[in-house]
């Protein structure tokens, strides 16, 4: 059974968001990492890049398969998890903690209202 963390918001694309003021930390969910299998590479944007909600911001490669990542919110990338460059398996082992991907500085947090809470996301992945 996939772990869904209370207090986070989720996109239907299986990304999670933790908002702290105007800073939104983004990663992929336990459900997504389990579906992908062993992750061998995560391609992330550069710090300073402006992301637009629902556009691709990177890729995640599991064994010989590549999938796209879509930004759940618009914002400027202010931090990237550099550890994933050498240790992409952190996304598998710790998707909500050590496997975080980017931190966005979000000007307008209204986009959070379009995301799912934990209960709704649990229902979504149970469908």
């Amino acid at each position: 059974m996939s772990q869904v963390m209370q207090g986070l918001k989720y996109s239907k694309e299986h990304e999670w968001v933790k908002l702290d003021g105007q800073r939104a930390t983004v990663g992929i969910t336990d459900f997504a990492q389990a579906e992908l299998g062993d992750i061998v590479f995560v391609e992330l944007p550069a710090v300073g890049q402006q992301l637009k909600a629902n556009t691709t911001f990177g890729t995640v490669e599991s064994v010989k398969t590549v999938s796209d990542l879509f930004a759940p919110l618009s914002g400027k990338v202010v931090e990237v998890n550099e550890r994933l460059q050498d240790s992409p398996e952190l996304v598998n082992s710790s998707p909500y903690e050590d496997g975080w991907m980017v931190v966005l500085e979000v000007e307008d947090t209204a986009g959070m209202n379009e995301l799912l809470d934990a209960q709704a996301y649990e229902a979504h992945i149970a469908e």
Partner: protein
Amino acid sequence: MNRRDFEEAYLVADGVEVLWMDNPNDAQENTDMDEQYGKAVASGRPPVVRLWRSGFADGLSLSRRDVAGERGMAALEQTRNEGLEVVIRQTGGTAVPQGEGVFHVSWILPRTSQTVTTDAYFRLLVKPIIAWLRELGLEAATGALPGSYCDGTYNILVENRKLVGTAQAWRGGLAGTGSRHPGYILAHASITTEVDFEAARLWINRFYERAGKDYRMEADTSISLVQTLPSIFAGVGKKGRNEAALSSLKDFLCAWLPQRGVKVLGDSV
């Protein structure tokens, strides 16, 4: 009909278009055509089996993982500065030799709401190729071969050496058909008609040394069609041999797939 040996036919229940479409004079554009077809398939175009020749210049196909980071980018630049043609592909894995003795098969399919694994798409890709090789008289099977270029479980091996490399890309959101970006699936095979594997080994290993990565290609892990089936290419030049092999596989697919219940919607060149 013989559907039992191709259970994966359900993945292309509405048929596929089989086409030979390439531009070997522009290696990167040639590679990127898969993405263009993928976007079209994601927008409703029928699925495609694209057959295509590599760019004519000798070189390598690298994944985005290969060129990630400063050392990866520096290794890429150094390799290009040495005169090798290097393309960056969308599928995963490691370096693959390119040149006028290599051709490719790309199955480009829409994402499906069914629960389907990468294994199923790999089987969809490799079974017809193995059947074609068997018709040519070769015993072929899938399997990993440590030390081979771009190693993976769905290598196609002949004489215990690698003849065909395979990889996939699942583009679109992680939610698949439930995504606003449902995307497409690319299942790709690279087939070596004729390659100087010792030269390729040196290029590949030099690239990874420069990139600071451990992957190394070992000698005697690869085989080409010309090495294993020299008689069928007698009197034909290198470019002609690759085109002959590609044509042979294309003709085979157009006959073999309908026998397994897969409608071929068109077979343009």
